[in-house]
């Protein structure tokens, strides 16, 4: 038999020998988080943060193959999903999440804030509206901010060159309801939290640019009803891989647009 010198191949788009980027993903056991792990578990090392439901370990979608022995698929090492249970509404959990990510992989290249609370409340009804809105503002806008600030203080600040070299960024998952009014479906609190998230992201982009970090929001229409969950995952990955900063990518059935 001939030589069998296996050269290492990264599995990302660059297919080079550098380690896969590390993605810190919240909301990892939700519909979006689960699909993201399935579709992008081979392109990122993912720190999958979940609350109550366990994270579904994604099926592998890529392997090394030897062209002379194509029937044998070899697992691509270095690709994995590390899960962590954490109640992000508790501010004390934020440092623990960052500790876990940095101890596990030594870096975070992409922060995807996908954890969210969505409660439909009527402003004219009898529910404790303010409590619901407060919870949504906290989880949907303040928690992403806490994670971003904690990561910047613990890791990103002082690494301008490295951040730019690895194209590090934050992608916050917002919603078209943060940009448009959908009448009479009780989305006031949810919409306000997503609008707040967008504005906070713009300011993160503005201030974090000082150390070479980008921040954007991806704002999909409702998924999987009006846009596919995969398309939202793809949009997150594209924004992460691109050079956009301080923008919102609206993802609607008619297509995407940048705001």
């Amino acid at each position, binding site marked *: 038999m001939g030589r069998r010198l296996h050269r290492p191949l990264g599995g990302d788009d660059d297919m080079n020998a550098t380690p896969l980027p590390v993605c810190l993903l919240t909301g990892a056991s939700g519909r979006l988080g689960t699909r993201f792990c399935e579709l992008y578990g081979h392109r990122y090392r993912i720190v999958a943060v979940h609350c109550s439901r366990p994270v579904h370990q994604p099926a592998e*979608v890529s392997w090394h193959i030897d062209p002379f022995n194509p029937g044998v698929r070899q697992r691509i090492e270095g690709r994995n999903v590390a899960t962590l249970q954490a109640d992000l509404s508790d501010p004390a959990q934020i440092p623990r999440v960052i500790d876990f990510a940095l101890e596990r992989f030594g870096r975070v290249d992409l922060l995807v804030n996908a954890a969210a609370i969505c409660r439909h409340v009527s402003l004219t009804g009898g529910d404790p509206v303010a409590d619901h809105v407060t919870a949504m503002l906290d989880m949907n806008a303040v928690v992403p901010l806490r994670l971003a600030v904690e990561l910047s203080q613990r890791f990103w600040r002082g690494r301008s060159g490295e951040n730019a070299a690895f194209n590090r960024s934050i992608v916050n998952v917002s919603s078209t309801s943060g940009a448009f009014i959908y009448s009479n479906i009780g989305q006031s609190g949810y919409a306000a939290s997503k609008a707040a998230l967008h504005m906070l992201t713009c300011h993160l982009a503005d201030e974090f640019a000082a150390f070479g970090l980008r921040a954007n929001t991806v704002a999909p229409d409702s998924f999987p009803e009006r846009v596919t969950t995969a398309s939202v995952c793809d949009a997150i990955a594209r924004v992460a891989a691109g050079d956009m900063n301080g923008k919102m990518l609206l993802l609607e059935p008619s297509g995407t647009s940048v705001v």
Partner: protein
Amino acid sequence: MLQTELSAVLSPGWQPSALEPAVDLAQLLVPGSWEFCLDPFPHVRARQVFTADFHRELTTAFDAILRGQQWPAWPEACFRRNMPGYDASAADLNGHVGWPFSVFVSRPWHDLFASLFAMSTNRCMGGALHHHVPGSSDGYLHNDFCPGWFVDDGRRDEIVVADCDRCNYCYGTTPAGATLAVRETVRAVAILYYLNNPEWSPGDGGETGLYRAATDQVDQAVVSAPPINNSLLAFECSPRSFHTFRTNRQPRNSVIVWLHRDKDEALAQWGEGSIVPWAVTTT
């Protein structure tokens, strides 16, 4: 690996014919692992595919043909703009293709990719050298699940290369007065090998984009394979294998080859109406 060993791995019982130049992939490929991925549809990517020596042979031959010079092993090779709707020129591979491009229509090359995708192919092959000048237009999303017509001379064990002088590859038409039996097949595997390109950097374009759906936007590929020299992209052709060429700022050169399968088998897998007919054209 000796050629006989490789042949046994790829196709038990196969022996090269006396007329077919011996192609020993074990001597031409750089040992190493390629990457097989199911997302967005089954495809293979590899870098540093051929040895430096063979890659140099390919680039020398490609450069000569691209410059309009006669390549002794394939004197009729000539780039033409003969692909309506596709902003590139091509030199079609045919039964007269000589070294080194004959490797791409060789039995070992065919069997390797049939094995990679576990496809029941029929040894009919077609392909071309492609050249995109800078500023070529984005392609349109398509799946390559198209017919391919070949002269049916009864051979089933040897490679049959498309021969447009005898049988139109897209429509199966034959020259007036010819009494040729023809055979309709369907593309099974597409292989793109990149060569003779300037050093590639992000933003240069010329990538082959892979997509989830025909309605995806062309600039939103799930996978982008850049035209990096001595790399390849191969994928299974199916109703889901949506892909296209991305506009380029630098020249983009490649060799593309298709393996084919019997039409009945393709229909049995994907159903009536799944095969995409070629647009009727007068050119």
